[in-house]
C-alpha cells in the first residue's frame, strides 16, 4: 500500500477522481459516454504528441519545437492531398515522414552543436515557425477533399435507445500508439538504452552505447509522433491554421511531467502518462 501512495499517479488519480465527481454532480451532461468519448477524442492529438515528449524527457532532453514540426507536417500533408488527392494512409505517411525529418534535424543539431536541447529546440521552433509563415503567408486551409472530411470511425456502438457512440480513428490511434510505445520502452533494447541515457549520460557513453544513434532515435520519434498527431488534429478540426498547435508545447510538457516523467531525465512510464 505504501508503495502505491508513493507514486505520483496515485495523487493524480485522486485529483482526477475529485474533478470527475464534481462535474458529475454539478451537471448531468458530463458523465455520459458520449461526452467522455468527445473529450478524449478532442485531446487525442495532444496525447499522441505527449507520447513522443515522454521519450524525449526520459532520455534527459527536451523538445519545444515539435508543435512547429506538427504544423509544418499539417500544411504539407494538406497541400498534397488537396492538390493531388490521395487517401488517409498517404496523409499519415506524409505527416510521419516530414515529422521524422524535422525531428532528425533537431537530433543532428543537438548532437553536433552540443548545446542544451532547450536552446537548440527553441531555435528550431523559431526557424520552423518562420519558414512556415514565409511559405504559407499565414493562410488557413479548410477545403479538404470529401474523403478526408467524412467521419473516420473505427467502431460504432449503439445503445438500446438508438444513440450512437463512435470511436474515432484519432482516439484509436492514440491508444494503439500508447501500447506500442509502452512495448518499445519496456521490452526493446533501444527503449532501455533511452532510459540509461537519461539516467547517466556519461556512463552510457562509457558502455559504448551509440549516443548519436539514440539521440536521432529520440528526436526522430518525437517528430514522428508530432507528424502523426498533426494529421490526427486535422482530421478532428478539419482546419489547418498556423497557430492551432503552436503554443501548446507547454501543455504537452506539463502533462508528461505530471504523468511522472522527470525533467532531469531517466524516469517516467507509459502507465503513468496514460493516467493524465
Amino acid at each position, binding site marked *: 500500500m505504501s508503495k502505491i501512495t508513493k507514486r505520483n499517479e496515485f495523487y493524480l488519480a485522486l485529483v482526477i477522481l475529485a474533478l470527475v465527481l464534481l462535474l458529475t454532480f454539478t451537471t448531468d451532461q458530463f458523465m455520459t459516454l458520449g461526452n467522455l468519448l468527445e473529450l478524449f477524442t478532442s485531446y487525442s492529438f495532444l496525447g499522441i504528441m505527449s507520447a513522443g515528449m515522454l521519450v524525449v524527457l526520459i532520455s534527459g532532453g527536451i523538445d519545444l519545437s515539435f508543435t512547429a514540426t506538427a504544423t509544418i507536417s499539417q500544411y504539407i500533408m494538406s497541400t498534397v492531398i488537396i492538390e493531388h488527392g490521395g487517401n488517409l494512409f498517404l496523409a499519415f505517411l506524409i505527416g510521419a515522414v516530414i515529422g521524422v525529418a524535422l525531428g532528425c534535424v533537431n537530433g543532428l543539431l543537438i548532437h553536433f552543436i552540443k548545446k542544451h536541447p532547450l536552446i537548440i529546440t527553441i531555435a528550431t521552433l523559431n526557424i520552423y515557425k518562420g519558414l512556415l509563415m514565409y511559405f504559407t503567408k499565414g493562410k488557413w486551409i479548410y477545403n479538404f477533399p470529401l474523403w478526408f472530411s467524412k467521419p473516420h470511425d473505427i467502431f460504432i456502438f449503439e445503445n438500446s435507445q438508438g444513440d450512437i457512440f463512435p470511436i474515432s480513428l484519432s482516439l484509436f490511434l492514440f491508444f494503439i500508439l500508447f501500447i506500442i510505445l509502452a512495448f518499445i520502452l519496456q*521490452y526493446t533494447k533501444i527503449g*532501455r538504452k533511452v532510459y*540509461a541515457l537519461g*539516467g*547517466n549520460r*556519461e556512463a552510457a557513453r562509457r*558502455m559504448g552505447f551509440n549516443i548519436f544513434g539514440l539521440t536521432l532515435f529520440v528526436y526522430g520519434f518525437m517528430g514522428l509522433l508530432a507528424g502523426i498527431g498533426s494529421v490526427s488534429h486535422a482530421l478532428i478540426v478539419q482546419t489547418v491554421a498556423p497557430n492551432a498547435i503552436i503554443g501548446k508545447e507547454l501543455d504537452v510538457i506539463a502533462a508528461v511531467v505530471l504523468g511522472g516523467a522527470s525533467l532531469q531525465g531517466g524516469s517516467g512510464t507509459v502507465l503513468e502518462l496514460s493516467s493524465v
Partner: protein
Amino acid sequence: MEDSPSYALKLKNINKHYGGVHALKAVDFDVQTGEIHCLVGENGSGKSTLIKIISGAESPDHASEIFIKGKQYRALSPIISVEAGIQVIYQDLSLFPNLSVFENIAISEYGEKRASLVNRRRMREKAQQAMNKINVKLNPDKLVRELSIADKQVVAITRAIATNAQVIIMDEPTASLSKHEIDELLKLIINLQKKGFTIVFVSHKLDEIMSISQRVTVLRDGDKIGTYQAQELDERKIEMLMTGREFDLNQSTDKKITQKTVIEVRQLSKRKNYKDISFRVNEGEILGITGLIGSGRTEVALSLFGMNKPDSGEILLEGKAVQFKTNYQAIQAGISYVPEDRLSEGLILPQPISTNIIVPILDRMVNKMRIFIKEDVKTVVDNWVKDIGIKTKNPENAVKTLSGGNQQKVVLAKWLATKPKLLILDNPTVGVDIAAKNSIYEIIRQLAKEKLAIILISDEVPEVYRNCDRILIMHRGRIKEEVKASEISEKVLNEKVIGGVVSV
C-alpha cells in the same frame, strides 16, 4: 621475458603528451595475475592517465608497448580492453540510478547487436550468477538510486564480474565511503582476490593501501618512482615517495594557549541532534571534535554558527551570551565556519578566486556610494593568495581550475578574510592529497599561533591527534570523552573512537 604469462598486464615505456605537457614519462608498470596492486600518487602524478591508457580511453605515444596476458598490443581501445578482460570502475561508478540492480549488472546485454528485444530472464540470470560468484546478495529489482553508496559500489564490481573481467581496476573506490563501509569493501576485494581476480587499486588513503595490497607502484609528476613490496613500506615512507618530501607528522608544541576564553558552550541541547554539550576554547587553542558520522559533531558546529538553533543551553562569546538567529549575525560576531562539502557549500566554482575570497566581506570593500573599490579588492585578494599559498598564476582564474587542496585554501582564505575570532573547520582535508593536506595543517597551526581559537572537526583520528590540543570524542549526540592529545597515543585515541561503535 616481457610476455611471461604470470603477468596479467604489463606496460613498457609508456609515454604520453597532452599538448606540451609530458603526463607520463617512460613508465613501466606490471600487474601479476591474482595480486592486489596499489597505484598511488598525488593529484596530477599521472595515475589517471595511466588508467585511461589501460582502459583504452587514451592512446599512449609511439614506442609504448602493452601486453595483456602475454599478448602484445600497440594501443588499446575501450572495446579491446574490455574483451581482454579489463574493467575499470571509475570513482563515479558509472551506474544508471534509474534502472534496477539486475539491469545495471547485465547492462552489457543492451550493447549486443544480436537481438533488439530485451531478454529480462537472461539478464536476471546473468546478474544472479555474477552475484553468486563473489558471494554478494542484493535485491535484483531494487532501483540503484535507492541503494547506499557501499551497495552501489558492490553493483559496479558485480557488473565488472558479469562482463568476465579478470583484471579489475578501481579508481579511488573509498573516497566517499564511511569507515565501516571501507572495511566491508576491503573485505570484498580480498574475497575477489581469493576467487582469482587481479585488482589494481588506486587510492591515496595510506592505511587502506597497507592493509590489502601485495605491491605498490608510486608515481610522481609523471615519473614512476618505483614498485615496492607492501611489507617494505610504511605510511611515512609512501608519503615521502609520493611527495618527495618529508613531513613533520608530530604534534606541534611550540605554541601558547592564553587564558582568555573565546567561546564557551554550556549544556547545549537540541532534540534529536545532541545533548548536554559543554566545552570552551581559548585563544590560540585547537579543539578537536571527532566521532563517527552521525555523532552530532556537525550539528553542534552549525548551532555555534547560527544555522541550527539549539533548544536549550548557552553560548558565550568572549564572556557574553549570544543567540544567533542567522549565520550573518554569527559572521558579524566573529565566527567562521568552513563546511565539509566545499563544492556545494563553500565555493562558487565557475567564479574567479578573487570573487570567492571577498564574498563574505563585500560590505568592507565598497565606498560611500556602495561601489567596489577595485584597489582594495586587489590588495586583499593578493595578500590572501600569498599568505595561504594558493597556487595560481592569476587570482582571476575560475576556482574550478584549481586542485582540491588549493580549492580548500580558497575556502580558508575566504573565511579568514572576515577576521574571525573563532574558526570552525569541518573535515577540512576531505579529498585533498597529502602535500596539500600538510600545508593546510601548517596553516591551521600558524593561525593558532596568531591566537585564533579553532575547532577542528574530523573523521580522521590522525588529523585531530596531530593538530589538536584537546579532543572531544562524540557519540550519539553526547560528548563521550575528552582527552588531551599530549597524554595519549594515536592508537589509544583510535580505539576510543572506534570503541564507540563496539559498545552499541
